[in-house]
């Protein structure tokens, strides 16, 4: 059947089972918006395109499906860029659609023209400038396929206006044929067997698990393998939720603000089983000293990550879930044959780790006068029983949430980890809530970052999205302040946010319930009450302004060299 490009666009999205798109209209995409007017696809009108990209990203992270956003040419397209780079750095599957000026005007400095394909070339997994209406179905099919397979990532499709207005025959391709793209890799059996043997034979093994575990849906398998081989597990910031926070083998997060015991275990390990990770500098600290005593196994779907930062002894190219599944029978067989001494050795290693957990727990000085941010996170964790989707922004609050929330499941932790994009947390929570309408979604944001995308209060108000926004209000660009305190002699330059708006009243201006909490005594009850409200809520929680995140590995230092907090009567984070 022959139809207009704009209609073809909508038909393609329907074939891809797209339920919701986040976007803002404009001149060159009017034809698409006209089709969306009565199409069975939900369109969420955002208030800034950056937020549209983050919302699509939050949708994808919470659901595992491809997130979709749409913007007009020029400024609409360029506003998406931060969101695209954010998704690219964290391997999140997005298909980003932009309109462009008519083909004959491209390259002409036409009104609202931007070379968005050129701009996003280095920060997309792939991108397209569509040249003919009849190419749209193939390109869209490929875009969804590329975004969601292998190591996922954002794909941008730029559509000149004339293409959307002219007609072509529509048929949606059944399959994709890309001779330069083969995302499915089958891990080598011999390497799997060698890995199984190394895991069992090691004396002090540690699993270092990352976002790849979440992406491939491998957390159940990870738990099985860890228990089978009796190996403690630490996760990266991206890997949070991939292994339960509360588990006898859990070490929590490693890296710059990781737990003392995770970093110490890594430093003592004789075997590192790295899975779905990329040895990021925020994780490894000084590279030469990272897991220096350990033989390294690296399970990874992206060949370009292997040996990139750290030379590995046993690379396994493959999907995390498939590799763990293949490992299991070997581990079962080997474990059955292990002598009693093996169990003694493993017990010794785990006992050592338990001692480290007791001696160097996560902790803070609680206070009766002022709310401690760590206490706030613990209260949120308690109130939600670890069942909420937590979408965080970037800064101290992000690290406290990573440390003090008790995660149980994958896809309940949304964090811009690679790019560290302030302004991500709130719009990502909107996307997550669209993906999971029945789940409690809490955006834990800083007073700084929230102000970068807080215009989206209008979006949650319009759709009555029951997102709970908790502002960890320390009246500072806290993470920057902490670095200035530690590394720049306390010269606080451009970090004072004490003249921020009254966020509770601001929420009310949007028609949203707002709370302002300043007293520790009122905290638990207010959270309880706010979270039971069926609509959106903003909770402005005033916390101790100069609290720091510890432990901390100074930039460039070895992860053995952690600065620990000094506490008078530490309240410790209970891992049971």
């Amino acid at each position, binding site marked *: 059947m022959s139809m207009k490009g704009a209609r073809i666009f909508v038909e393609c999205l329907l074939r891809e089972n797209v339920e919701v798109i986040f976007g803002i209209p404009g001149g060159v995409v009017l034809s698409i918006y006209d089709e969306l007017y009565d199409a069975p696809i939900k369109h969420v009108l955002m208030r800034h395109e950056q937020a549209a990209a983050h919302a699509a990203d939050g949708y994808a992270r919470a659901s595992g499906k491809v997130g979709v956003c749409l913007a007009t040419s020029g400024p609409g397209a360029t506003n998406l860029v931060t969101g695209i780079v954010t998704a690219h750095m964290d391997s999140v599957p997005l298909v980003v659609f932009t309109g462009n000026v008519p083909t004959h005007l491209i390259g002409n400095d036409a009104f609202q023209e931007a070379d968005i394909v050129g701009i996003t070339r*280095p920060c997309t997994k792939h991108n397209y400038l569509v040249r003919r209406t009849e190419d749209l179905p193939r390109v869209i099919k490929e875009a969804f396929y590329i975004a969601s397979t292998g190591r996922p990532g954002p794909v941008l499709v730029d559509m000149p206006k004339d293409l959307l207005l002219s007609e072509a025959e529509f048929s949606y391709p059944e399959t994709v044929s890309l001779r330069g793209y083969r995302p499915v890799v089958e891990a080598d059996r011999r390497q799997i067997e060698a890995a199984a043997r190394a895991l069992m034979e090691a004396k002090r093994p540690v699993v270092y698990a990352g976002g790849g575990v979440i992406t491939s849906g491998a957390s159940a398998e990870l738990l099985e393998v860890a228990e089978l081989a009796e190996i403690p597990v630490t996760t990266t910031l991206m890997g949070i939720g991939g292994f339960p926070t509360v588990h006898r083998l859990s070490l929590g997060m490693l890296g710059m603000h990781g737990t003392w015991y995770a970093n110490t275990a890594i430093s003592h390990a004789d075997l590192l089983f790295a899975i779905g990770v990329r040895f990021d500098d925020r994780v490894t600290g000084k590279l030469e000293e990272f897991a220096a005593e350990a033989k390294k196994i690296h399970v990874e779907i992206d060949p370009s990550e292997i040996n990139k930062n750290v030379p590995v002894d046993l690379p396994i190219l493959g999907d995390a879930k498939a590799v763990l599944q293949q490992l299991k029978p070997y581990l079962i067989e080997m474990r059955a044959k292990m002598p009693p001494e093996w169990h003694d050795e493993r017990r010794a290693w785990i006992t050592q780790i338990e001692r480290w957990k007791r001696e160097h727990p996560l902790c803070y000085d609680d206070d009766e006068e002022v709310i401690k941010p760590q206490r706030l996170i613990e209260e949120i964790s308690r109130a939600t029983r670890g069942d909420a989707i937590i979408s965080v922004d970037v800064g101290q609050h992000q690290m406290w949430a990573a440390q003090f929330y008790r995660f149980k499941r994958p896809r309940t932790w949304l964090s811009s980890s690679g790019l560290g994009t302030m302004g991500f947390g709130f719009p990502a929570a909107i996307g997550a809530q669209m993906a999971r309408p029945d789940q409690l979604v809490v955006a834990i944001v800083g007073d700084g970052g929230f102000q970068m995308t807080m215009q989206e209060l209008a979006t949650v108000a319009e759709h009555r999205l029951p997102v709970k926004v908790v502002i960890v209000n320390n009246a500072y660009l806290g993470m920057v302040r902490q670095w200035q305190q530690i590394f720049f002699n306390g010269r606080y330059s451009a970090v004072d946010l004490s003249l921020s708006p009254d966020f509770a009243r601001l929420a009310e201006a949007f028609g949203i319930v707002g709370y302002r909490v300043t007293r520790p005594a009122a905290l638990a009850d207010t959270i309880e009450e706010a979270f039971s409200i069926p609509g959106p809520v903003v909770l402005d929680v005033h916390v101790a302004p100069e609290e720091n995140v510890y432990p901390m590995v100074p930039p460039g230092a070895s992860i053995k060299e952690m600065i620990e907090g000094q506490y008078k009567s530490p309240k410790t984070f209970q891992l049971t």
Partner: protein
Amino acid sequence: MNQTLSLLVENKSGVLARIAGLFSARGYNIESLSVAKTDDPTLSHITMVVDLEPRIVEHLLKLLDKMIDVISVANLSGGKMVERELVLLKVRVDPAQRMEILKEAELFRARVIDVGSDSYIFEATGDTEKIEAFIDLFRKYTIEEVARTGAVAMSRGLTSPHRVTATGRSK
């Protein structure tokens, strides 16, 4: 150390920009680059010479291989390969020097492809070393212009790194 990379890519817009961007984003220079379609007009062959540490080249090759429009990549240096370059060299000639210049060009089997009233254009092919020697030879005259294709290269024998089937590469 110079390394010669060979890439088989889709012959379409944006591919070269993507490949070049990988190098420019890291501040790496490309020493030479030659691109044209192959016997299959949907495919282009790229020969690229870079002066980078082997460890970096290895990583870049993986990144290139990851690109959707890149079908196959190989580092030809280290293996057995043939490498050729073509140069056009325009030299100013005084009538008195004509014979002498032609003789010198002969040594390199260069051909005259344009004769002006006071200039010659020579065409010479060879490996990079020969091309550089050829250019050096003319420095004692007045070189007006030099245009080089950059190296094109292939591995020797039937061991091509780029065997393409309908569905993709087979190694």
